[in-house]
């Protein structure tokens, strides 16, 4: 065996790959499920919080800023572990899947709240004044005039942040979620061969390259021009 053949046999072992690719495929399905749930719930919650923040209820906003800052400061893995191992002590026993979903959705909520809020505050005061001077209520102005402009400013940073957090689904492997990395690592320990990891990496590329490309398109498409 030459060095090259040994390399191929170790990292791209056809026999091992043939045996484990269905596991990786299953992992892809779980990753997609997890990612979709995280994105939808995280962004919806972040948007809701930003809208509530606009109401300007001081005590609520202090609390909100504190929680958001904590969630942004903690490593996502720490939040996953806290939920997975911590909640059972108050008799709530979330699965690894639910723990990962909850943790990443909370992190995305925190970041997207900040992004939405930055978008809201970037809309000039004159927009509020013009709308209010015609008799639109606060809520009508926020939803009908300010948010459509804020969302446009929001889309590029939100896209890159969402992609970053979605890749965090791999952290679920730590709490036994059978997503791509989880499936790949158990295949590695069963086969004593790292080839399933290569399959896993390929699976991530297949999933995320289109997302990254789409994200780049969105970012240029929505770059703000007045």
């Amino acid at each position, binding site marked *: 065996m030459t060095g090259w053949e040994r390399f191929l046999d170790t990292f791209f072992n056809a026999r091992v790959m043939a045996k484990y690719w269905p596991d990786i495929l299953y992992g892809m399905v779980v990753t997609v499920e997890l990612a979709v749930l995280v994105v939808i719930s995280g962004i919806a919650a972040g948007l809701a919080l930003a809208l509530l923040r606009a109401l300007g209820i001081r005590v609520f906003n202090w609390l909100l800023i504190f929680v958001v800052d904590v969630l942004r400061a903690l490593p996502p893995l720490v939040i996953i572990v806290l939920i997975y191992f911590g909640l059972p002590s108050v008799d709530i026993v979330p699965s690894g899947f639910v723990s990962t979903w909850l943790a990443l959705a909370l992190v995305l909520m925190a970041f997207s709240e900040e992004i939405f809020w930055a978008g809201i505050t970037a809309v000039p005061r004159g927009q509020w*004044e013009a*709308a209010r001077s*015609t008799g639109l209520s606060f809520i009508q102005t926020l939803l009908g005039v300010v948010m459509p402009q804020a969302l446009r400013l929001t889309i590029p940073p939100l896209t890159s942040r969402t992609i970053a957090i979605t890749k965090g689904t791999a952290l679920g492997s730590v709490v036994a979620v059978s997503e791509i990395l989880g499936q790949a690592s158990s295949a590695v320990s069963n086969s004593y061969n790292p080839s399933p990891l290569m399959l896993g990496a390929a699976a991530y590329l297949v999933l995320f390259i289109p997302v990254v490309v789409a994200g780049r398109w969105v970012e240029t498409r929505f770059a703000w021009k007045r």
Partner: protein
Amino acid sequence: MIVEAPLIVEARGIHKHFGALHVLKGVDLLVAERELVFVIGPSGSGKSTLLRCLNRLEEPSAGSVMVDGIDMLDRRTDINRARQRIGMVFQSFNLYPHMTALGNVTLALRKVAQKPRDEAEALGLAALDRVGLRDRAGHTPGQLSGGQAQRVAIARAIALEPRVMLFDEPTSSLDPELVGSVLAVMRELRESGMTMVVVSHEMGFARAAADRVVFMDDGLIVEQGPPAAIFAAPQQARTQAFISQIQRH
């Protein structure tokens, strides 16, 4: 001044503090129906703040504001309904950039005046027609010149059929060659009998169209009277200084 027509705007004893800054120091402004009151004064004298107190974009610290018989400062007043009667035009236009000209004009017609869509659009087009921009109904603000944008902003306000229109330096951010088109629309509005309060530096317009010129300085009305009297023979030293300064331009 002799007031025969009923008063549309009655602002009395208006004070406004921004923290330690005392910006309005007891201003009375009474505007009769169909009157055009022209407000002048140095930058920072409180002209914008006074206008914004009239529709309660700013909350006066003290005083009373009645517009068309409605107590604007009463907590029980539905402020959003009351503001329909008071149109406002801003120096920076403040058009909604994500909507067409027609969308800008119809938004409050639909959401505040609760008109059905087709009726709102008919009224909106009529308002755009009045400012000479019916053919620009589908343009977004980015596709309009400054003069056109300001005329759309005027259409947005008059579409609600207000009882009084407030103008805060409507031509100050326009290129000189575009000022005339906006002033022409304001002149037409004035001739149709609209009650107007105009903060502006367009002295030619004041001479031609104003019933009364009000000079403000340092949060107070220093002097007021017919334009000819104020411009030709101001009584107060501060008014004289201001008039001679602007007339040098």
